[in-house]
């Protein structure tokens, strides 16, 4: 009995060797996290404290994933597990090493949620984000439901949880976009391997992105084209022109060129759910509903949306919320919404050129982000040319979000968001460049080259290399700002000290917004950031701070890193500022290794207001 059991176990281990590799890679990840020392982080962020176990583990999981894709007995369960481990590597490493939630907006959003939790309503006229309170209200509800005093408990691990939640809709999109199974799974992995954009922190837009993915996944899963209106024998240009003309025919625009395998009851049920999701999405974020509208339009013209009422509903809900629900935001600031319509050049300039500033390390990270995004788009273009397909829905969905750039600059973040909205589809197209689907009524622009089929054996190696390089680059650029976007316990203690001592209507001065601040006293305490949108010189910074004379000033490690990395200030600049504050009758009232709190004094004691 025992002699038979050993070969059986060995056989199973061999058959499931990718699972064994998954366990090994997880063990290496734990080792990497244990070895990393947060306080040793350098100017290039998270990657500076990661040692060999991280990269060895990443290599193991990527090799296992690609092997699982190409093996004959490939399993969806094993692939899902391996993708989730890639998610852990890319999105859980930061939260595991950094002692508190990263990104100052996470803390500000917790403050908004706390305000709703305490007062039962939003604070009018305080912040534009309160005009789209859906996500905050949901978080307040969840906090109350789980017995939390505030939402801070969710903030730290939120990125990895929400990224894992994106997996299901992205897999459904892959399954229903006409690519092969291998291409689908590689596309899913590339989606994560290129998601450096860091819009998954504790925020309504991260939640809205989930709504966006679920909406599109549901539409693609329910409807498919009824027939292709084929045009042949008109030459390349003539054929393409006729295809575009067909895409705009009335029958297609009212959803008549689609079929569905689902029952009417299922379709009604899904439509009700999608309408609710649409309503929730328009109340939660400014930009996502418009990306959803463009995506649905892309589905409609490629015969993938059978009920155009969903598109009309989303348009009506979005515009109605902007007009009626978000009037706090636009009254007096209408140019913020419509001012950049048609100004694609200046939008791109704001989104790209103005970001390449600061120290050499910061410019390196920003340039790398732009370059890898460009490479992904090139891969996607190659995939478009190489793949055969039954419909060009993926291309339409990948291109649709870019229309936003012609309408809204979104405060210099438009391009980031557009790339993110496009990512699930560009990833599948990029995967098609490496593993093109060869069957489909629409033939590829570039036919497979015969002599290259002899190199088929090299394909898994090339795919592995591409995936590993993408994962490493994303590790570098995603955590590239962590030197100032992640916070120590000392900094949180300093902020809590100030919240414990500051009185209503007093002013708290900070250098930049890169502090774990904003989670308390929303609307009663003024927090002024002297760094501002346009980065001042060191002298201007000190001058404006001393002129305003805030009641409390917090100087910290992350602010110092921000000054060196983004502001281009010399090392030790914060000590000089501290000395200037002391000379201007400030005193250090609390101090930690990574933060100091200064309080304004006069000859009778601390200032009272």
């Amino acid at each position: 009995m025992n002699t038979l059991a050993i070969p059986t176990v060995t056989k199973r281990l061999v058959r499931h060797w990718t699972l064994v590799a998954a366990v090994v890679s997880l063990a290496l990840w734990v080792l990497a996290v244990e070895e990393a020392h947060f306080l040793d982080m350098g100017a290039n962020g998270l990657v500076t404290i990661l040692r060999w176990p991280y990269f060895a583990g990443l290599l193991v999981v990527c090799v296992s994933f690609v092997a699982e894709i190409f093996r004959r007995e490939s399993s969806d369960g094993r692939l899902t597990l391996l993708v989730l481990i890639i998610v852990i590597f890319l999105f859980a490493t930061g939260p595991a090493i950094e002692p508190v939630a990263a990104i100052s907006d996470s803390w500000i959003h917790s403050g908004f949620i706390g305000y709703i939790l305490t007062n039962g309503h939003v604070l009018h006229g305080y912040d534009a984000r309160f005009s789209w309170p859906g996500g905050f209200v949901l978080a307040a509800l969840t906090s109350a439901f789980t017995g939390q005093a505030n939402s801070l408990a969710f903030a730290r691990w939120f990125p990895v949880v929400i990224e894992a939640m994106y997996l299901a809709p992205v897999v459904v999109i892959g399954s229903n976009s006409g690519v092969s199974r291998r291409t689908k799974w590689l596309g899913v992995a590339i989606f994560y391997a290129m998601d450096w954009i860091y819009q998954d922190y504790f925020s309504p837009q991260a939640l809205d992105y989930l709504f966006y993915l679920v909406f599109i996944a549901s539409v693609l899963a329910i409807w498919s084209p009824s027939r292709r209106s084929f045009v042949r024998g008109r030459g390349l240009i003539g054929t393409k022109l006729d295809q575009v003309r067909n895409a705009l025919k009335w029958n297609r625009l009212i959803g008549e060129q689609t079929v569905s395998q689902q029952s009417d009851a299922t379709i009604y049920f899904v439509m009700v759910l999608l309408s609710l999701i649409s309503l929730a999405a328009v109340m939660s974020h400014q930009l996502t509903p418009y990306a959803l509208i463009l995506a649905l339009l892309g589905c409609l013209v490629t015969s993938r949306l059978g009920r155009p009422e969903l598109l009309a509903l989303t348009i009506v809900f979005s515009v109605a919320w902007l007009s009626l629900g978000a009037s706090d935001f636009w009254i007096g600031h209408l140019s913020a919404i419509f001012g950049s319509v048609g100004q694609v050049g200046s939008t791109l300039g704001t989104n790209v050129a103005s970001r390449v500033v600061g120290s050499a390390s910061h410019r390196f990270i920003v340039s790398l982000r732009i370059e890898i995004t460009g490479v992904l788009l090139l891969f996607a273009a190659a995939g478009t040319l190489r793949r055969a397909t039954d419909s060009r829905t993926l291309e339409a969905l990948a291109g649709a979000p870019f229309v936003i750039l012609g309408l809204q600059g979104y405060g210099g973040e438009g391009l980031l968001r557009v790339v993110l909205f496009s990512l699930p589809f560009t990833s599948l197209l990029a995967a098609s460049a490496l593993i093109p689907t060869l069957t489909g009524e629409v033939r590829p622009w570039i036919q497979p080259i015969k002599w290259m089929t002899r190199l088929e054996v090299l394909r898994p190696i090339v795919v592995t290399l591409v995936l590993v390089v993408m994962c490493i680059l994303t590790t570098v650029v995603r955590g590239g700002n962590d030197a100032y976007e992640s916070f120590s316990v000392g900094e949180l203690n300093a902020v809590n000290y100030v919240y414990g001592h500051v009185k209503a209507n007093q002013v708290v001065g900070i250098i930049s917004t890169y502090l774990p601040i904003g989670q308390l006293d929303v609307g009663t305490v003024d927090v002024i950031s002297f760094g501002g949108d346009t980065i001042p010189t060191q002298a201007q910074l000190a001058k404006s701070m001393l002129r305003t004379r805030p009641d409390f000033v917090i100087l910290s490690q992350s602010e110092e890193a921000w000054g060196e990395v983004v502001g281009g200030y010399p090392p030790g600049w914060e000590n000089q500022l501290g000395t200037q504050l002391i000379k201007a009758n400030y005193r250090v009232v609390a101090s930690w290794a990574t933060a100091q709190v200064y309080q304004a004094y006069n000859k009778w004691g601390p200032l009272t207001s």
Partner: protein
Amino acid sequence: MTTLLSAVNAFGPSTLTLMSMILTVALLVVRAVVHQSRITVTRASLIWLDAAIVVLIVAFLVFVYLRFLYLV
């Protein structure tokens, strides 16, 4: 809801915006049911329904624009 109601001033652009939105949504629901359940109606009725929806959406957008002008 309080925000929504307080934004609605009777007989002004806000009321018209809200009413045209509600009517549009109602007609869209009717359209979805008629088409999805393949209810037998004349072709002219379907065209009138689509025309009514398009007119309502255009009216809704005009009211939104007027509201921008009215409140900005």
